[in-house]
């Protein structure tokens, strides 16, 4: 069956914005993967200097201009996407399994398990996400990309517990769950084989939306100097470096800033499209 002719794609593409989002996301992912072959100056990623061309405004050679040691900002933005996307994927790869397992256990097992797990979740939800991530990075020794990933994951899992918990609670009274219980299916089987598939549409939608928001939070941390360290081309770090020299060399920070905006926008639009497609609320 051709997906592009299916009713799902019809529902998804009914809103042209979702398709725009899909195009944005696909383009960025392709650019990021093939960055070394596509970008005009791949050697500008590391500690490269070219003082003859420093602080050049946007031109046909350097479409986003160059930074104060002569590196092409466009090249660095594309490589920055590699870091951002990796961050998004790793954070969710840690946070989603933890959140989903906790949510399933709390929702299905109930009683004391539910009480304990949900109270723990509430406590983590009570600390604003960025503040929690910041404190964790502050307590770890030296900021780097790996710690950023850990810190953001720690702040992110409770949302998945909440989501899966709510779905599990509404699904567990269904007849087929009772049937599986009577057949003697194990708790594991019921949670992961009977209940989890019901959560997939919401889960997929939330993951897509969150990819954008995790990138946003990650770039916020590196904006504060608590993420990937120079000379790694990180979008948030680039914005922060440029912010101190406003307004003369505005291209230092505006282009990386807009690069963050575009990728978050892309994932957000696709996420909204998925919401309509699956008809879920996350």
């Amino acid at each position, binding site marked *: 069956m051709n997906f592009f002719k299916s009713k799902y794609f019809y529902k998804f593409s009914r809103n042209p914005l979702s398709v725009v989002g899909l195009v944005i996301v696909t383009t960025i992912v392709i650019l990021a993967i093939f960055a070394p072959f596509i970008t005009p100056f791949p050697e500008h990623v590391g500690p490269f200097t070219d003082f003859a061309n420093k602080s050049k405004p946007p031109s046909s050679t350097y479409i986003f201009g160059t930074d104060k040691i002569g590196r092409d900002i466009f090249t660095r933005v594309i490589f920055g996407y590699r870091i951002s996307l990796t961050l998004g994927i790793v954070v969710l790869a840690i946070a989603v399994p933890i959140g989903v397992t906790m949510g399933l256990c709390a929702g299905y097992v109930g009683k004391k398990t539910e009480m304990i797990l949900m109270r723990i979740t509430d406590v983590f939800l009570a600390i604003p996400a960025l*503040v929690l991530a910041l404190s964790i990075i*502050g307590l770890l020794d030296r900021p780097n990309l790996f710690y950023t990933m850990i810190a953001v994951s720690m702040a992110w899992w409770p949302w998945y517990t909440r989501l899966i918990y709510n779905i599990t609670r509404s699904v567990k009274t269904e007849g087929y769950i009772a049937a599986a219980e009577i057949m003697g299916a194990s708790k594991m089987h019921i949670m992961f084989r009977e209940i989890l598939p019901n959560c997939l549409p919401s889960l997929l939608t939330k993951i897509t939306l969150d990819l954008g928001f995790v990138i946003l939070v990650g770039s*916020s941390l590196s904006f504060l100097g608590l993420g990937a360290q120079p000379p790694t081309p990180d979008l948030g770090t680039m914005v922060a470096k440029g912010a101190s020299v406003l307004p003369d060399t505005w291209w230092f920070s505006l282009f990386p800033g807009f690069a963050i905006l575009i990728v978050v926008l892309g994932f957000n639009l696709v996420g909204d499209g998925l919401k309509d497609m699956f008809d879920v609320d996350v």
Partner: protein
Amino acid sequence: MNTLQYFLRRIFVSIIVFFGVSIVIFCLARLIPGDPARIALGPFATDEMVEQLRETLHLNESIFIQYGIFIEKLFQGDLGISTYTKRPVLVDIVSYFPATFELVLMSGLLMILIGMPLGILSGKFKNSIIDNVARLISLLGVVTPSFLWAIILMLIFAFWFPILPVSERMNEALDPPTLVTGLLLVDSLLEGNFKVFGDAFLHLILPGLAIALPAIGNVARLTRTNLSDVYEKQYIEFAKSYSFSEYRIATKYALKPASIPTVTIIGLDFAFMLGNAFLVETVFVWPGMAKYGVEVILAKDLNGIIATALVITTFFLIINMIVDFVVLLLNPRITTKD
């Protein structure tokens, strides 16, 4: 369950959550690799000095006793000495917190005053030009990092059209009002000093807006959806059949139920805005808690970090309680649930 019981229960839950948060933050600070005493003293301290500090900080006791001591001191208002500012952390908080408090309240106000009307216009004139523009604004609000808003606002209103101030809380040339609450707007009004009041207000606009814009998008989006849902309800049809005026239907029958989910989400938006304050205060050189927080984090000041996290979380818990009470006023039925 009556209203009073609901209030008490809500306060009780908040206290429990507060203790949970204190446990989490305390555990994070103690279980993370690295000796806090060594970190506080730096790499050049002798082993004896470190051992002495371990003794004074009770680091050789078991973690449960340490937590007990931590809580006991917390309630005596003793949060330890900041290794970054060399002052008691409580003194730092008292001097920095009001600035953040004022800023975030301003953002909250902007969020409601801009977000709600934007959502209402959008929901009322669905699929018109107003709707599309409002939706575009809300979408951009949500997806733009607030530090980028800060930079854009700064470029536009401070450099290209220099009409608004962009750093600190007030003009240095003016005399600050006597310290009463620490909130410049309140203190200057108490003195009747309108010059300072106006100046402080102008200083609040840009950072307040930069913090609020992402939340404005959220509020507008939600209000739009809820309002159009309510307009499809039968009682609206009924009111229309009585030929009540549009205005009366909107204000009396539609807005109240439509605002409940928005008000509920405002609590979460505050969490979001408190996080954003960390980014925006840095850009606008705002002498607040969040800027202090970033500084202590960069300086590895353990007591400062713990205190910042606790204060911000407590502030958030209190706002959440207030939000819940407002929701209760809008929708008294919730006391009968669960």
